[in-house]
């Protein structure tokens, strides 16, 4: 089981992930969106464990693969758009390259070759976390622990 997450505190909104993704897949599956205050936020598929898009797909084109990522099998997709409606984040979009729906699959073809997702490899600030679930959980917990201790220290002193 693997995870790919974003540490918003570290993300600097440099758009590298988006452009690298576009270079590899032809369409960016990772988007950098801006709020009114121009606060940049990278939005890509969260690879839900109980994914609404997988549940709703009529042709079973979407599935969760061995490593826990939601992938789309293009040859089964009929581009009905139900997954886009079901997704709370609006991640699946029509892809002009494959003429089906398209979404982040954590670089499924690269993972098959033994490589890692390109956005994680190229992220300059280290905001994208990828790896075994346990490792990432440990990282998050350590960070949370540090933050909590920091807050306590600030309150005491």
């Amino acid at each position, binding site marked *: 089981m693997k995870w790919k997450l974003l540490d918003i505190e570290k993300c*600097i*909104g*440099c*758009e*590298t*992930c*988006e*452009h*690298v993704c*576009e*270079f590899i897949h032809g369409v960016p599956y990772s988007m*950098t969106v*801006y*709020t*009114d*205050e*121009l*606060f940049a936020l990278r939005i890509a598929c969260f690879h839900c464990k109980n994914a609404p898009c997988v549940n709703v797909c009529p042709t079973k084109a979407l599935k969760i693969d061995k490593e826990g990522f939601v992938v789309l099998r293009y040859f089964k997709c009929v581009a009905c758009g139900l997954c886009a409606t079901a997704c709370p984040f609006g991640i699946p979009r029509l892809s002009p390259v494959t003429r089906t729906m398209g979404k982040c699959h954590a670089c499924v073809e690269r993972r098959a*070759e*033994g*490589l*890692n997702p*390109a956005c994680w*490899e*190229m*992220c*300059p*600030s*280290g905001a994208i976390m990828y790896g075994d679930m346990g490792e990432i959980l440990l990282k998050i917990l350590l960070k949370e622990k540090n933050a909590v201790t920091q807050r306590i220290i600030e309150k005491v002193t």
Partner: protein
Amino acid sequence: MRFSFMCKREKPEERIGKKVAIIGSGPAGLAATGYLACKGYYVTVYERLPYPGGLMVFGIPGFRIPKHRVLLGTKELEEVFGVEFKTSSKVIAGDAVQLIGDKYVKRKVPLENIIEEHDAILIATGTWIPRLPPAEGLDKKGVYTALEYLFYKRASELELKGIPRIELGKRVGVVGAGLVAVDAALEAIMDGHKVYLLSIEKPEEAPAGSYEIIKLIRKGARHIQRVIVKRVLGDGKVKAAELVNVHVKFEGFRIVELKPIEGTERVVELDSLIFAIGQKPTPPMKKEVLGIKLTRWGGIEVDDYNRTTRDKVFAAGDVAIGPSKVGRAVKSGLRAAYWIDRYLTNTL
């Protein structure tokens, strides 16, 4: 950052016996280096500073992009893929432009030699000349540009020797409202200076975004908006800046009309001024030489395949597309590398 993300961490089995030179090792240059090294080309990178990385190492603060991430990536390129990094060597064509950090240049390499020796050349030299406003008294001590200041901070973190100290004094005026201005102001605040952010834009119109500007104000900066610096006062050293209010019209983030309002001049006492109002491209040449055409704004002219007007020579990154973010530079470098590969395999 693993610049060679297109292949595994091992030496490519087949080598294509062709040599590519990359001039400049910023995000665009390194992304292109990684792509071409994966394809099996012999790549040589020319960099005028002692470490590769460009503005990612010598400009952007470490709390945004940790330096070691970039330097580890370049180390991998060097050790695993056999990329040759020629640091401290500046590539020039004709008259050289003096840039920040030229103190560390040990060798000067003429561009025509590189063009002769390699099968393809990628120019990715970026934007290293800071713009200055048309104000009086900018030759005084204490007037700096943000690039100078950030370069000084990074160089002292890397423990490079021989860089002149930058003494900011107590009150610092940072002119501009872009991301570079925000970075310079943040560093100054963290060093314990009192920062005055002087900008034409209101927070909601700033190119850096009101989120960053308001964060700065919360950290203790004072924002004086709708002003430009008319004159820098003081004898020999900055003592104060004369500001004047302006009328301004925007088209997106671009200023289309700027008119100073007479009679609104006021003086703000400052010990130093940091200008961060934009950067100009710095190609290796000052004017058109070797058949490489420059654009109206000083960059290198490229077509859709990243080719310049001279055969074999490509250009990418900020020098070809104008000042932008890391991501756009990376994409430009990757695209240029893709077209170089197509060019060298005769499929372009």
